[in-house]
């Protein structure tokens, strides 16, 4: 085994052999939990965006862990206002930058957790898209309100146990399906929507770049493992990200100009059974065999739906 000493570890300017910059804009030393998948996604998304960027963030884990006054993990300008208004704050920034003649060349990244994006801030997001603001919205989806202690959100998957959808004797976890947010966002008629995860960091970088190059609102649904909330091992972020794709729980695609294209397609025969994904997470440990089967059917049906619209102009483009 080769042991790198600190001095020889790559730092500062420059890129690795696959083209990823060494420079970090979301610095280490923040207070995220060990193995946080959401922090990993945020870090790579701002890395992909680069220094000429402004970030807006909603209240949630990432805001709390990254800005304990007077410290900050942010090397790009960053603003947080409230839980549900990241898109509205971004609307104001977009308009102000345009009025001041400094909109060109500045990336505007808007981060929201699943709670902020699927639920409480959904109206503001929808309104901002309708008004045609130019920013890239990133929903870092860890499938619950983690900051407040793992309460259920509209993004919590079917039958998962959370503190407000507990696996009890009478009710076995969340009874409702996950809201299909990327498809709902795509229905607004925008030009670029993508899903991304830590299963493929290079793909994530490419998608962020594409999103930022869009002359309108663009949207990235960023799958983010939360070992604490999901009751999985603290080194499970990458494993679960990969398994989520291989089991077809988290489909990887882009919707460009209204056409859905898989960026990594998993055929039914080659897919890993969802059980392999579920059994690594305590939030599913209450499931019976029958329920696992229900989830398998549910996951397959969602994937088949996407396969059905693949390559077709399934979404109207309005902008």
């Amino acid at each position, binding site marked *: 085994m080769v042991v790198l000493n600190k001095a020889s570890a790559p730092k500062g300017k420059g890129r690795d052999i696959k083209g990823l910059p060494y420079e970090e804009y979301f610095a280490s030393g923040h207070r995220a939990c060990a193995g946080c998948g959401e922090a990993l996604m945020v870090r790579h998304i701002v890395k992909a965006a680069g*220094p*000429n*960027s*402004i970030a*807006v963030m909603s209240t949630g884990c990432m*805001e*709390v862990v990254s*800005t*304990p*006054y*007077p410290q*900050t993990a*942010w*090397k*790009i*300008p*960053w*603003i*947080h*206002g*409230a839980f*549900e*208004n990241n*898109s*509205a*704050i*971004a*609307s*104001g*920034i*977009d*308009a*102000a*930058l*345009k*009025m*001041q003649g*400094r909109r060109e060349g*500045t990336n505007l990244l808007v981060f929201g957790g699943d709670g902020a994006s699927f639920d409480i801030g959904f*109206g*503001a997001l*929808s*309104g*901002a898209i*309708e*008004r045609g603001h130019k920013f890239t919205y990133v929903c870092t989806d860890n499938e619950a309100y983690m900051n407040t202690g793992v309460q259920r959100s509209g993004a919590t998957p079917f039958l998962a146990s959370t503190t407000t959808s507990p696996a009890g004797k009478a009710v076995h976890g969340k009874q409702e399906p996950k809201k299909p947010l990327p498809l709902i966002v795509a229905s607004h008629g925008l030009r670029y929507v993508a899903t991304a995860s830590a299963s493929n960091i290079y793909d994530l970088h490419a998608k962020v770049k594409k999103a930022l190059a869009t002359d309108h609102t663009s949207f990235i649904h960023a799958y983010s493992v939360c070992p604490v909330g999901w009751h999985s091992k603290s080194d499970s972020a990458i494993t679960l990200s990969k398994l989520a794709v291989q089991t077809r729980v988290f489909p990887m695609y882009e919707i460009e100009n209204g056409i859905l294209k898989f960026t990594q397609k998993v055929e039914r025969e080659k897919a890993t059974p969802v059980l392999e994904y579920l059994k690594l997470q305590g939030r599913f440990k209450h499931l019976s065999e029958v329920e696992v089967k229900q989830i398998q059917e549910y996951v397959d049906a969602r994937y088949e739906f996407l396969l059905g619209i693949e390559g077709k102009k399934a979404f109207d483009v309005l902008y």
Partner: protein
Amino acid sequence: MAKTVVEASHAVAEAVKLCKVEVCPMYPITPSTHIPETISEFVADGELKSAMINVESEHSAASAVVGAAAAGSRTFTATSSQGLALMFEILPITSGMRLPTVMAVANRALSAPISIWNDHSDAVSARDQGWIQLWVESSQEALDSVIQGYKISEDRKVQLPVMVCFDGFTLTHVFEPVDIPSQQKVDSFLPKFRASHVLDPKKPLTMGPIGFPNSFMHFKEQQQEAMINSIDVIKKANKEFGTAFGRKYGSGLVDLYKMGDAEYAVMGMGTLCGTARVAVDKLRKQGKKAGLIKLRSLRPFPKKELQSAIKNLNALAVIDRHISLGQEGPLFTDVRSAVYCNDITINSYIAGLGGRDITIKHFEKAFADLEAGKQKGEWLF
């Protein structure tokens, strides 16, 4: 000077144009709607170069103001009643982040029952959220206060948002002769906005972090300091405005009417002061030493000025157009706390809720109570 007959809401929009506001996130609600409508016309006609953001809610209007102000633009919005209630969450965020802005509040009752008519429950309920509140009496004062508002808000010793509160319908929809000042005059009174801190990739900074118990109180202490600083800044802005435009509003904080030798006075905010002036004149004709204290600045609350204004009074009647349910008229509470050392009778009247008219008769009754030495706390219907 040539005056134009315009609606007060139009006068406010004119002020927004004269202040060259760059970003106006707006959402309509009666009785403030004529403001966004007029600003939209200005923008559509190319008279005002501003980004009108037709947001999907007042919550987003207030939030877009935060974003645009943080990016360094001069901003404006307007609302009323339920709209202000929906914005409530963002009010302390705007002031806590020390973002200068001006918002016109066309005062209207809060539901329920739903009422589109005037009282002061909306803005008075929001008085503790770190916004300076200027309460105005006329269309001219509404226009002038928006201009003064930016001057105050953007002062480095202040850097707090300003609400210009004007009565729904009884002022917003009233047509009066108004002097609309020249652009040149406004430009020399109000310099271009230069924010002290701006979202800019060239100089990254973090805005709106989490404050733990070891820091949070210091932020609030500084906000209170800025509020106290604003007392002099409001006075100065009003004085300088007087020199530049030939009119001012009392000291900027309070406007005293026939208080020199007054023995009895009424006190209130907004358009009811116009009616009170007529009542005072009427009583003066009868040889009674009546006066009026118009409160222009509810926050900061001008304690010292008030103490000296009431020094020679026998008794004072405070008219509240709002009630802190379970307590009393909030203005009454503030006044009594400011002058608790003075030996003076103060009566409290709740009046004009949900658009109920406040008439000369009401003031006559209040004055009669004072003269008769009646200690009162009552509702004027």
